[in-house]
C-alpha cells in the first residue's frame, strides 16, 4: 500500500488554498441567491445555478454600485476561490461583481435611475447653461474611435479658434469605469482649463454601456465643475449619464452642434444685424428729414402770409393820407365858417350883459343908504349896533348918529 501523505487539518487547509491560488482570478457566472450587507462594511452572499451554490464574500468598495444587486440577478463574479483558514469552509472572495444579461442589466439600470433621480442628480435646476463662445473643449472619447473622429471634424468645421483636448478613455469593458473616473478626476483638478466637456460614444448593448450607467460615473458627471454634454449610445436610449449631464445630445455630431455655433451662421447673423441697424438709421434720418422739410415749409408759408399782410397795410397808407387830408380840409372849412358867427354871437352876448350890468348898478345906487341920508334921515348906533327903538336906549348910554355929511356923538339923558 502506497503511503499517503498525512496532513494536519490546518496543513490540509493550507495545501488546498495553495492549489486554489494557482487558479488565480476566475470569473464565475451565477444567479445571486443571497446578498446581505452587514453594517455597511461586509457583504456575504451566495451564487447559484441549477445544481450548485457557493458562498461569496466581498467588501462594498470593491463592488461598483453594490446596492443594485439583489437575489435573482444573473452576475459575473470576478474573484479568487479559497477556504476559510479556521473553518475550512469554501468561500469565493469577489473582487468585482457585474450584472450580466439584458434582464439583469435593465433591472440594475432601472433601480439606479430611480435612486439617482430621487437624490436630485437629474434635476433641471442644477443643469448649467453652456458657454456661448467656448474655446477650450475637453473630449472624453475612445481614442481613434468614430465618435472622436466625428466630434473633431464637426467642431473644427463649425468654428475656428478652438483648442480641443482629447481625454482618452475605454468606453466599454473592465477598464471603462476606472479610465472614465480618472478623466473626471483630471477635470476636477483642472477646472479652468476647459469651457465645456463632451463625453461621447457610439451605440451598444446595455453591457457595452455599463460604465455610463454606473453610479460612480454618474456621480463624477454630477460633480464635474465644467458643464458636460453627454452623447452616449443611440438616439432613443438614454444612458444614466445622459440624464445627469447638463445637456444630452443624441449623437456625437449633435453634441458638436450643441457645443459650438456655426461660423457661417454667425457671420450671417452679424450681417443681418448690420443690415437692420442700417435700415433703422436710414428710417430715422428720413423721418427727421421730413420733419425739417415740413417745418421749413410751414415757416415759408407764414413768412409769405406776413409779407402779404404787411404789403397790403403799406398799400393802404396813401389812401389814409388822402382821407386824412380831406378831413383836415373839411374841418378847416367848417372852422372858417363858424368863427365869424361865433364872434358876432359873443359880441351880442356881451352887449346884453353890459346892459344888465348898467341896470344893476343903477339899482344898487338907488338902494344905497347914503342917498337916504341926503334926504334928511340919520342912522343912530349904540355900541356899534343900529338903534331901531328908543326904548332900547337907557340914560347915560353913549350914542353915535351918522348924518349925510358926518357923525354926532351924544349921551342919553
Amino acid at each position, binding site marked *: 500500500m502506497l503511503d499517503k501523505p498525512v496532513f494536519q487539518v490546518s496543513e490540509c487547509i493550507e495545501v488546498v488554498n495553495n492549489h486554489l491560488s494557482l487558479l488565480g482570478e476566475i470569473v464565475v457566472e451565477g444567479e445571486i441567491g443571497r446578498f446581505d450587507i452587514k453594517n455597511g462594511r461586509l457583504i456575504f452572499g451566495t451564487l447559484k445555478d441549477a445544481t450548485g451554490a457557493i458562498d461569496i464574500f466581498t467588501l462594498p468598495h470593491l463592488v461598483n454600485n453594490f446596492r443594485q444587486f439583489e437575489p435573482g440577478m444573473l452576475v459575473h463574479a470576478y474573484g479568487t476561490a479559497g477556504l476559510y483558514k479556521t473553518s475550512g469552509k469554501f468561500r469565493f472572495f469577489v473582487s468585482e461583481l457585474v450584472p450580466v444579461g439584458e434582464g439583469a442589466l435593465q433591472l440594475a439600470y432601472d433601480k439606479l435611475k430611480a435612486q439617482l433621480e430621487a437624490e436630485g442628480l437629474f434635476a433641471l435646476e442644477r443643469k448649467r447653461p453652456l458657454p456661448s463662445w467656448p474655446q477650450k473643449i475637453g473630449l472624453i472619447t475612445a481614442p481613434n474611435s468614430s465618435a472622436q473622429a466625428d466630434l473633431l471634424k464637426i467642431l473644427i468645421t463649425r*468654428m*475656428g479658434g478652438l483648442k480641443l483636448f482629447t481625454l482618452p478613455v475605454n468606453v466599454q469593458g473592465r477598464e471603462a469605469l476606472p479610465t472614465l473616473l480618472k478623466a473626471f478626476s483630471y477635470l476636477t483638478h483642472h477646472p479652468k482649463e476647459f469651457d465645456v466637456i463632451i463625453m461621447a460614444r457610439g451605440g451598444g448593448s446595455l453591457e457595452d454601456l455599463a460604465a455610463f450607467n454606473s453610479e460612480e460615473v454618474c456621480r463624477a458627471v454630477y460633480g464635474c465643475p465644467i458643464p458636460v454634454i453627454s452623447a452616449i449610445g443611440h438616439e432613443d436610449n438614454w444612458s444614466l449619464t445622459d440624464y445627469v449631464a447638463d445637456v444630452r445630445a443624441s449623437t456625437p455630431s449633435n453634441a458638436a452642434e450643441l457645443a459650438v455655433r456655426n461660423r457661417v451662421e454667425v457671420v450671417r447673423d452679424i450681417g443681418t444685424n448690420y443690415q437692420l441697424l442700417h435700415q433703422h*438709421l436710414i428710417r430715422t434720418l428720413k423721418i427727421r428729414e421730413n420733419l425739417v422739410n415740413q417745418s421749413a415749409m410751414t415757416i415759408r408759408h407764414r413768412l409769405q402770409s406776413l409779407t402779404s399782410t404787411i404789403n397790403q397795410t403799406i398799400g393802404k397808407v396813401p389812401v389814409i393820407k388822402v382821407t386824412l387830408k380831406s378831413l383836415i380840409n373839411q374841418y378847416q372849412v367848417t372852422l372858417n365858417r363858424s368863427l365869424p358867427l361865433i364872434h358876432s354871437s359873443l359880441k351880442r352876448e356881451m352887449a346884453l350883459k353890459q346892459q344888465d350890468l348898467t341896470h344893476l348898478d343903477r339899482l344898487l345906487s338907488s338902494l344905497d343908504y347914503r342917498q337916504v341920508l341926503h334926504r334928511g334921515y340919520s342912522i343912530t348906533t349904540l355900541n356899534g349896533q343900529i338903534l331901531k327903538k328908543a326904548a332900547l336906549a337907557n340914560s347915560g348910554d353913549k350914542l353915535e348918529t351918522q348924518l349925510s355929511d358926518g357923525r354926532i356923538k351924544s349921551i342919553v339923558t
Partner: protein
Amino acid sequence: MSDELKLTFAKAYDELEVITREFEAGDLDLEKSIPKFKRASVLVSFLKKELSKMESQIEEINLDDEAKTKVL
C-alpha cells in the same frame, strides 16, 4: 492671449446684440443713433475678421501623467 481673444469676441458680439436691440426698440434719437451705428460698424468688422482667421488646435491629454503630451 486666447482668453483675451475669447473675451473680446464674446464682448463684441454681446455689444452688437445690445445695440441691435436698442435700435429695434426705436427709442434712440438721431444724436445717439449715429455714434452707435459707427460703433456697430467697428464691431462687425472686428467680428468678421476674427471669425475668418481663427485656426483650431488639437491636443491629447495624458491622464496618467496629467500633462499634455501629443499635439495631433
